[in-house]
């Protein structure tokens, strides 16, 4: 099972004497036994992408096969961890090897010594099929269900009693139809490039509430949905991803820092343990798994990082959780593919990307979705995927953006002009879209009110109108517009300033609960309607704009989330009075 290196060029190594090796098999390359993966085979020559710096490797050094594909370890203890692209625990590595990453680390992803309190659910003699719950352990506030692994079927020969176990201890045995007894621990391994199976895909209908107004109210994503965030550098992709990781109402977050900045991971590590989840009150870090393969870490491990992340996400989905995965940035993943492909001297496609770029992107997003999990529980779980895209020069016509748009259902287009004017989040309301509004309408009707869809439509129509008028204004100036057009411009300004702008750094406005979003929409649409009636009744827009209530609307976002109802009711009353609508506004 040993080959010999015959060529090294950057992260790609070729070895001969590899006949019988498998595609995607994991190997140890060179005298330092660097971890690598076979990505091409021709006769007895294997092409290997190496997950560590290859400096110093020379032809003639050995390559050891492992017989297994690149896999991740799954089991209790994943939450709160920080891993590199091939699931090596970065904090453990730091404790053992120091502040700088030295190659050759081989540390297990899951702590072998830590014990977990196991509570059996299954009983000896009971039926065991993939997905049957054997028992549970508490992982922080989560019930971590230990399931019968794929490929194991029969009856339980034994199930361990309640007690403390490590991930290596046997907690059950399954007697297969063939009569052999299979020991089962809490540790699973799964090849990262293969999606984990499920019973069936379901149609998602619950929004993934993010607390970001332009997302939840204008361009929603669902639990189990897919979204892309493309934008030029500095437009706010990472902040959007961080905001979603912090505030979205998924149970579990898998955050993949794929080829981006070290300080951005440091930022997450600084904030997440200190911030608490608005729903459970526990630290955000307790529901998060971080995969960090920064831009200066080996490029092949960056290529693997998104697969490592999504496999972990699927694992928690299979326990019945809603998981959200953020990948920042999928363009760096695509570039890693391009770099490896270039070293293989493959025929390049557009912009030098390999021809299989589109199918790899599609295959990745295809692993998102809401599913009924395997096994008798019939539980439902979901994986939502939100990928940042970093188009060169901010030009969305490039291959990664275009191929991503073909497979995702939400498109949050970030806009450099908005970012330059510090309009954040800089999601362009005219070019962005979501294909989910109809799916989530039911949820909003139940949790906000019946008018959600109509108000959303009205607000977007005003913004659309503003977009059209802008061209005219640019030719002839705003002065000559009729009053109703002037009103549209005025109201559009209020929508932008008080609803769409939402600072991630404002202690209150960083998260806007859906009820508050709904009420803000109501105030703004009421204002638009009253304004329209007033204009029809002969009042000028200049007069309307100078009403104190217009200034009041501008500060809706930063009103304390606990106290907003009162402020909003007051605003509604004041507005009704200012427009001569009698007392009380609405119910």
């Amino acid at each position, binding site marked *: 099972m040993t080959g010999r290196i015959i060529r090294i060029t950057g992260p790609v190594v070729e070895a001969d004497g590899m006949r019988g090796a498998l595609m995607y098999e994991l190997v140890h390359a060179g005298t330092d036994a660097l971890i690598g993966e076979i990505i091409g085979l021709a006769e007895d020559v294997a092409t290997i992408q190496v997950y560590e710096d290859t400096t110093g490797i020379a032809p003639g050094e050995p390559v050891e096969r492992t017989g297994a594909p690149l896999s991740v370890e799954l089991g209790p203890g994943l939450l709160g961890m920080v891993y590199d692209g091939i699931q090596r625990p970065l904090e453990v590595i730091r404790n053992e090897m120091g502040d700088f990453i030295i190659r050759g680390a081989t540390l297990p992803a899951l702590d072998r010594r830590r014990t977990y309190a196991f509570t059996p659910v299954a009983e000896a003699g009971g039926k065991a099929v993939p997905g049957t719950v054997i028992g549970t352990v508490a992982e922080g506030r989560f019930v971590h269900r230990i399931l019968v692994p794929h490929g194991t079927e029969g009856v339980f020969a034994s199930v361990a009693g309640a007690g403390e176990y490590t991930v290596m201890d046997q907690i059950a045995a399954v007697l297969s139809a063939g009569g052999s007894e299979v020991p089962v621990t809490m540790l699973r391994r799964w090849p990262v490039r293969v999606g984990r199976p499920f019973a069936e895909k379901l149609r998602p209908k619950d929004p993934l509430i993010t607390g970001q107004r332009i997302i939840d109210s204008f361009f929603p994503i669902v639990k189990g949905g897919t979204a892309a965030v493309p934008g030029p550098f500095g437009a706010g992709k990472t902040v959007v991803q961080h905001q979603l990781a912090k505030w979205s109402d998924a149970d579990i977050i898998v955050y993949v820092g794929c080829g981006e900045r070290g300080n951005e991971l440091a930022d997450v590590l600084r904030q997440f343990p200190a911030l608490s989840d608005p729903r459970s009150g526990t630290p955000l870090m307790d529901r998060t798994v971080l995969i960090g393969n920064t831009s200066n870490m080996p490029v092949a491990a960056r290529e693997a990082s998104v697969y490592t992340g999504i496999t972990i996400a699927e694992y928690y989905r299979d326990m019945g959780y809603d998981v959200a995965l953020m990948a920042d940035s999928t363009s760096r993943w695509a570039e890693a593919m391009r*770099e490896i492909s270039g070293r293989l001297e493959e025929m390049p496609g557009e912009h030098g990307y390999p021809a299989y770029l589109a199918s790899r992107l599609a295959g990745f997003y295809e692993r998102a979705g809401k599913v009924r999990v395997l096994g008798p529980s019939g539980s439902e779980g979901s994986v939502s995927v939100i990928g940042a895209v970093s188009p*060169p020069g901010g030009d969305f016509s490039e291959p990664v953006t275009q191929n991503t748009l073909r497979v995702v259902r939400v498109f949050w287009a970030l806009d450099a002009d908005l970012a330059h004017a510090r309009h954040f989040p800089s999601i362009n309301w005219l070019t962005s879209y979501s294909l989910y509004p109809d799916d989530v309408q039911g949820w909003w009707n139940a949790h906000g009110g019946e008018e959600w869809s109509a108000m959303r439509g009205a607000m977007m129509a005003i913004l659309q109108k503003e977009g059209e008028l802008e061209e005219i204004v640019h030719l002839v100036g705003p*002065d000559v517009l009729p009053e109703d057009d002037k009103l549209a411009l005025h109201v559009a300004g209020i929508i932008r300033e008080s609803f769409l702008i939402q600072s991630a750094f404002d202690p209150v406005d960083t998260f806007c609960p859906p009820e508050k979003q709904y009420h803000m929409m109501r105030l703004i649409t009421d204002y638009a309607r009253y304004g329209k009636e007033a204009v029809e009744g002969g009042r000028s827009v200049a007069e309307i704009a100078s009403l104190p209530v217009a200034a009041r609307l501008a500060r809706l976002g930063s009103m304390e989330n606990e106290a907003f109802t009162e402020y909003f009711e007051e605003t509604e009353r004041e507005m009704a009075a200012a427009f001569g609508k009698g007392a009380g506004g609405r119910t």
Partner: protein
Amino acid sequence: MTSPAREYTSVVRVSGPLMVVSGVGDAAYGEVVEVRLPDGEKRLGQVLESRTDIAVIQVFGGTQDLDTDITSVRFTGEPLRMVVSPEILGRIFDGSAAPADGGGAVIPGKIVDISGSPINPTARAFPEDCIETGISAIDGMNTLVRGQKLPIFSGAGLPHSRLAAQIARQARVLRDQEEFAIVFGAMGITNEEARFFLNEFEETGALEHAVVFINRADDPAIERIITPRLALTAAEYLAFDLGMHVLVILQDITAYCEALREVSAARDEVPARRGYPGYMYTDLASVFERAGRIHGRKGSITQLPIISMPDDDITHPVPDLTGYITEGQIVLSRDLHRKGVYPPIDVLPSLSRLMSGGIGEGKTREDHGGVSDQLYAAYAKGRRLESLVTVIGEEGLSEADRRTLAFTARFEKEFIGQGVGGGRTVDETLDAAWDLLRLFPGEELNRISPALIEKYLRREAP
């Protein structure tokens, strides 16, 4: 890499910056070679690709005068390394770390691999100490913090050198007196620019705590691939071994990238955009990510790379990929320069991503964030109005719009265009901002909290 040194004369091909040696068999990837020319001159090279029969080598000193007959190549069995010791402070080296100031070689202290190792992301301490540069457009609206990488995007003929030198001279951290150092790495700069920096360092006494590496425009181009790595290796030593706060100025990253492109083209690699290699993002990251702070260590590395944008085009691959890696950018504008504004910083495309953690109450001033956002909103609106006015004239504008235009003109002239003289403190910068914000009625300042407006807007200018 422990194989002993081996020597070959089997150069079979020389092309562009590359050379192919046959019959080597065991050349290690990244191994350093010493090339001896027919006339005895020695040059440094490095293995880019190794096979059982050949090794492909990039020659940092250039390949002119190499031949396939007498030229010999010694494989050293070592990666590219340099010597560091406290004595490097005050020294000037060429682009390959040979002394260029008439002084002797550095007495060995520590020998380190110049490619460095990635900082474990979990070891990074998040940068949050504001550096006061004295420049309002930076301190007020794009605050620099210790451990940040903040490039200056410039163009031919714009005063980026002067700005970088001014920052190096004025930079100080609020409430702090710690040891600091400057590392200057020059790639392909003109003699005039080199002289400007050296004079500046000498006149201000900065040279004593500076380390300078200079590859000039007429020095070998491929050497530029190692110069920034030498500079950053020196910086890492000063920061993380000696505990100093190091400001690294790298000029010009565009020349560095052109060297990468030359090597890539010589290898017939499939290019990404405009002939630059597909791995340029990764390569630049291996330079720029060598900035930051580390938990439990005293020092820090702050990078101020200078990028000249060919054709003033910010979407050119060099500024574009840089912007995707660095923590913001300071963009110089030819328009402002023509209007006589110094420093000609266009704040709209400029950004400091680490600003929010470095400002505010207890760090700079409670009103800092709001003031900056408000200046941005007003100036962005003003610039839009300016382009409108060129079409329709000022007549059609409302009272509020006219105010914004008046603000915009004064903002460029007074706030940005502070002149070449000394700097402003952060307080002075914020006060200057309020002077301009007084042009607006309080209700229009919707990016600042009412309490702060109450406190600062009504306060008379000091």
